């Protein structure tokens, strides 16, 4: 079945705007009438990804495909890539700076949270080239 697609550009220049795309997506999912727990899981997963892209990769893009039975969120950036995915998936592991931690992020919960709130999380990454995350949330 054809999906309803939404595209968002994530601005990496301004940390204070980080999260705006996730807020927009949440509003669209609410308008489409999805159950609140589905909306929340999508929102948290995308928000974590969006914050990560701003912190680590100078922004990127998000594409959300909405199906009746699932929501697929693809986040893509041209940042530094993730050298050790297994390590990055460990709760508490973070390469964030003190400045980012002072802003309330960088606790090493981003990727683990994305996995926690989604049915599947696929990570394609290449050092020096970028990272593509594909997350699926079942409805």
């Amino acid at each position, binding site marked *: 079945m054809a999906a309803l697609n939404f595209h968002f550009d994530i601005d990496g220049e301004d940390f204070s*705007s980080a999260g705006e795309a996730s807020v927009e997506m949440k509003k669209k999912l609410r308008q489409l009438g999805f159950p609140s727990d589905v909306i929340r899981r999508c929102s948290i997963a995308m*928000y974590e990804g969006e914050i990560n892209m701003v912190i680590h990769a100078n922004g990127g893009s998000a594409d959300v495909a909405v199906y009746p039975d699932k929501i697929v969120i693809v986040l893509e950036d041209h940042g530094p890539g993730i050298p050790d995915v297994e390590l990055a998936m460990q709760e508490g592991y973070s390469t964030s700076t003190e400045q980012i931690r002072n802003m*309330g992020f960088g606790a090493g919960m981003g990727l683990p949270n994305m996995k926690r709130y989604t049915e599947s999380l696929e990570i394609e990454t290449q050092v020096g080239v970028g990272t593509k995350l594909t997350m699926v949330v079942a409805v």
Partner: protein
Amino acid sequence: MQLRQIAELLRARVLSSEHMLDTEVQNAFCCDMMSDVLAFASNQSVLLTGLLNPQVVRTAMMMDMHCIVFVNGKEPTPEIVSLADINDIVVMVTEASMFRAAGTLFDTGLLNTEEE
């Protein structure tokens, strides 16, 4: 408990969304790390924090929270207040510390998690 009562208990100044003060809440969560709010809060309606930036409001929105209490008299910027206001989130400021504010609310029966 209504948000109005929380403001009274904490002697807090309400800065946004006053029309939402009759909202009933049962749970609260205290944290300065927004990553931890996203990881560990579940169905909490009130966020007590000492962190001041717009991501506090966006995090609260992601978690469907109704109220943010800034502790230690920390004054949010107009940008933070305005973002909360347009999204129907009540922002209040209390002079109480995080520990005292949490203790006061806990004493009155506000819980930490929905399971309690």
